[in-house]
């Protein structure tokens, strides 16, 4: 008979001590289910026969491969061009710096179809840069180059912002000490700044790659063919309905999940080792 009052007292005491954690856990579960359930349903509850067929469909496999390596090339270009910009933004002040930082974030907020149209006005065959590149054999419409610039435009802010935060976290005095020890600015960057900011830079690069893989709006304006997976899913949905679109989407989700969980694991292991 005394068990229930004791249990009620213990539960009440536990709730009082962990109120914040319990409330936050409740909200966290809602958002986790929101993200997890649609993906879970698509991957595990889709038609097994259709999934198997899609796995043997060369159009699907080529599209996934194209998406992955186009996003990888994009991330590499973003790394080469974005890291220096992030370093300058983290270490130096200059007129209109706030405007430049605002412009970098712009691709995140504008609709990506609008971003695609904006890119078409610059890189289209009859426009400013498009003409020049066309002259040296690079065409940005219906080509790998088009996919890459569309992905680059919408995903570069992720790398630039993450790398900038990483550089901010590196104590300037470490760089000062390295300079007085005889290191040139290049040596300081290579031996001190970059190694200390590398986790943020690689996280940003990974985010950029991920964003590139998922891009649809800007790519479809510039390059319908060759078809990246997001466009292939859309095309199958439009032409054949949900049953043909779901297996392609499920394969892309599984491939991406495996890759990103793998990278997260490597980054965590690096963090522990440091």
């Amino acid at each position, binding site marked *: 008979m005394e068990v229930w009052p004791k249990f009620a007292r213990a539960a009440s005491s536990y709730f009082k001590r962990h109120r914040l954690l319990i409330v936050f856990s409740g909200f966290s579960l809602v958002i986790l289910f929101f993200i997890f359930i649609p993906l879970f349903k698509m991957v595990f509850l889709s038609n097994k026969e259709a999934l198997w067929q899609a796995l043997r469909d060369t159009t699907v496999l080529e599209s996934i491969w194209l998406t992955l390596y186009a996003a990888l090339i994009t991330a590499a270009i973003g790394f080469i061009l974005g890291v220096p910009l992030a370093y300058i933004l983290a270490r130096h002040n200059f007129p209109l710096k706030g405007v430049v930082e605002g412009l970098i974030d712009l691709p995140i907020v504008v609709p990506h179809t609008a971003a695609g149209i904006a890119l078409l006005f610059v890189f289209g065959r009859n426009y400013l840069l498009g003409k020049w590149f066309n002259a040296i054999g690079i065409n940005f419409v219906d080509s790998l180059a088009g996919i890459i610039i569309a992905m680059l435009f919408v995903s570069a802010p992720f790398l630039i912002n993450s790398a900038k935060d990483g550089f901010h976290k590196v*104590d300037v*005095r*470490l760089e*000062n*000490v*390295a*300079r*007085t*020890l*005889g*290191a*040139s600015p290049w*040596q300081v960057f290579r*031996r*001190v700044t970059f*190694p*200390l900011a590398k986790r943020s830079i690689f996280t940003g690069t990974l985010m950029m790659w991920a964003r590139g893989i998922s891009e649809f709006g800007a790519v479809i304006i510039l390059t319908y063919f060759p078809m990246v997976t997001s466009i292939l899913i859309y095309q199958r949905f439009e032409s054949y309905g949900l049953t043909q679109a779901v297996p392609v989407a499920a394969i892309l989700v599984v491939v991406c999940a495996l890759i990103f969980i793998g990278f997260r694991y490597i980054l965590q292991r690096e963090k522990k080792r*440091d």
Partner: protein
Amino acid sequence: MIELKNVRVKVADFNLQQINLSFGKGTYTVILGPTGAGKTVLLESIAGLHAVHEGEVLLDGKNVTNIVPEARGVSIVYQDYTLFPHLSVKENIIFGLNVRHVSKAKIAEELEWICGIFDVEPLLNRQPATLSGGERQRAALARALITKPEILLLDEPLSALDMESREEMYAQLQDTHRKLNITTLHVTHDFEEAMSLADNIVLLNQGKIVQVGKPADIFYRPASEFVARFTMARNIFEGKISGQIKNEKVFKTGGLEICAVSDKNTAEYAIIRAEMVNLTAEQPVSMPNVFRGTVKSITDKGANILVTLDCPLQFECLLLRQQFEKMLLSPGQQVYLSFLPASVHLI
């Protein structure tokens, strides 16, 4: 030798103004001042880490104003020793040799030499995060000195340590300076640290030099009210010279007349250090500067006791514990305070 001629440095909203200094080869100079005085900016400007807007920086007579930090032969050690966290202690120490592409044989030779001075051999394979404060400091000094710089710059090198480690580090820094005879500039806001280590002290405030001199000069002959307060002189009285008796000036302040040995004819302040004031129960005979006062408060400072008296000006007197215990003082008690005219500094 380091010389700074009319140096002006602007960093964000802060200005270092009209800095004229000269530090002899092998000297140990402490740059002292409150937080925000510009001490670190001065140190970093000597290292070439800030652009000098006006004036010249000369190292051994050579104008290095526009020379990059890596070519100046100057090493800097910061407050928390700023060891590179991603490198082992060994990699930290030989960093300066690696970036200069020194041969492996020479690196091994130099490493052995520096390990002998700072006893860092047992630390070589450890990561900086696992070191104690003292070990970190030894590693940072070894890293700074393995390249044999002309000048060593120390930015608050002891402020991260507890009192006991700090005493050990005083000895370590003095020993290093004696062995290597390296020109050293040491920044601190701690006056006791400056007194313990310095050949010379430069006192900075709000980007300007306020006094340069031997530690005793700064301590007993402050050039301004600011220096007197910064060095905890405690008894600082505003007034003016009202006359002269033989060689001594009479300084009138708040109804009291204080005799001072001074060659000044005008003065705004009389300064008497608290430890130069004597307290006695009986009136001392044939002595100038004897005043009767009432004990207002007693503050235990550990080794010393600070006694505040009303007479009627408020005087503070620092007694040794032994001396205090003999006198059995208590608040409200009437005592005589006295000090020598030579202990009074007029500015």
